């Protein structure tokens, strides 16, 4: 009996962590049991959820099994998730959003270069909140995704367009200074700008 219990608990743990539907064969393989036994066990598990009217239930789709919440509690679940979504943006998310907005379209690596840290979490959450979206891929090695802001972003910040963003402090001056760093004798002014860009790119 205790062995059966262990198997039921192992199945529960596996289905919980997997999230997605899992095939019986896969479960049987992990537990080193035959498919028939595992199917029977899954039936048991499902029955215990139903018996005690648990908040969870086991559903079967295409011979795959998945744990999910019981419909009776879907109102509570929905309410909770909606409270969660109303959490204000984190500092990190704000900075990522600002970098995307001021540069119009950027890659993840650009954002991370500016901030100096991994930003994948913030980017994913901003995409989920509908504030930024994928705008295609850059024609560079690895074909990195580029991100830009959405209409929802403009609405949340009461902007008509990205041109209405508050001006950045003296960026232009800084650029001018950094653009004049030597090498003037080799190429004429026109070529110089591109030179800067090129070397950045080549270093990547």
């Amino acid at each position, binding site marked *: 009996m205790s062995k059966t219990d262990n198997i039921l608990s192992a199945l529960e743990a596996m289905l919980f962590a997997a999230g997605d539907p899992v095939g019986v064969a896969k479960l049987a393989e992990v537990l080193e049991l035959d498919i028939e036994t595992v199917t029977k066990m899954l039936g048991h598990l499902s029955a215990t959820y139903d018996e005690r009217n648990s908040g969870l239930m086991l559903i079967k789709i295409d011979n795959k099994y998945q744990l999910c919440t019981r419909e009776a509690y879907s109102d509570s679940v929905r309410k909770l998730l909606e409270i969660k979504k109303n959490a204000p943006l984190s500092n990190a998310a704000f900075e990522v959003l600002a970098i995307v907005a001021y540069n119009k379209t950027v890659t993840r690596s*650009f954002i991370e270069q500016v901030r100096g840290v991994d930003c994948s979490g913030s980017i994913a959450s901003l995409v989920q909140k509908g504030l930024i979206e994928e705008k295609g891929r850059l024609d560079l090695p690895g074909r990195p995704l580029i991100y830009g802001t959405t209409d*929802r972003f403009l609405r949340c910040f009461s902007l008509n367009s990205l041109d209405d963003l508050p001006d950045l402090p003296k960026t232009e001056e800084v650029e001018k200074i950094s653009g004049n760093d030597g090498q003037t004798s080799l190429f004429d002014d026109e070529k110089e700008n591109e030179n800067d860009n090129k070397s950045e790119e080549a270093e990547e």
Partner: protein
Amino acid sequence: MSDLTYKLEVFEGPMDLLLHLISKHKLNINDIPIVELVNQYLDYVRQMEEADFDVAGDFLEMAARLIYIKTVSLLPKHEEAEKLKKELTGELIEYRDCKLMAEKLSKQTDGFGRFVREPQGGWVNYDYERFHEGEELLQAYVNAAGKAMRKLPPPIDSFKVIVAKKFVNVASKVRTVMRKLWSGKKVKFTSLFEGAQSKSDLVATFLAVLELAKTKRITIEGDMVNPEVQMVNNVNEAEIFNEVDTVE
């Protein structure tokens, strides 16, 4: 030798090595006999060098610091030495504590066997619904990029021109440049750019020259106005291309 390397690899840095020496030679951490410690430390660094171990700058920096403390403690008035020693003691105790805490933490990792699940998605609408001022964005941008924004790489917009055009590969330009130099004769620097078809072509050629100069395959001589370029003797063609390909 391999035994030594194994031991050396254990140290996370100069502080770690110092703690090890202090415990191994039963020195008093609260009143470090600095002369003894310096000798032990330098012995170790020497062994690292003998073992062909790449001695990191951190270790050498600490060596310099220890030697300095030793030097000032030889002065008749050695208040400064006392101060520096106290500083070092404080740092060592702090790092020792850090290691003890790390060890304690490393013994309670049961929780790594607990798995959680992703939030249930699908039918929940996560659209953001709060309102903000544009100024908040500006502030966030300045925070992220720094006030001067000096270190900012160029935004993607500035790549567009390049990306739209044919991108000239630096490695291919290395071949072109080397072909012009293959005779072994000195060649005018500017002549390397003859026949360039676009700005991008010019830039790639320039980068190719820099790369070749950096890896000491070519030499550049003469004044700023009219330099000349020459290939270094005995350069193997395949070798260059391999190298440049990996650089790219």
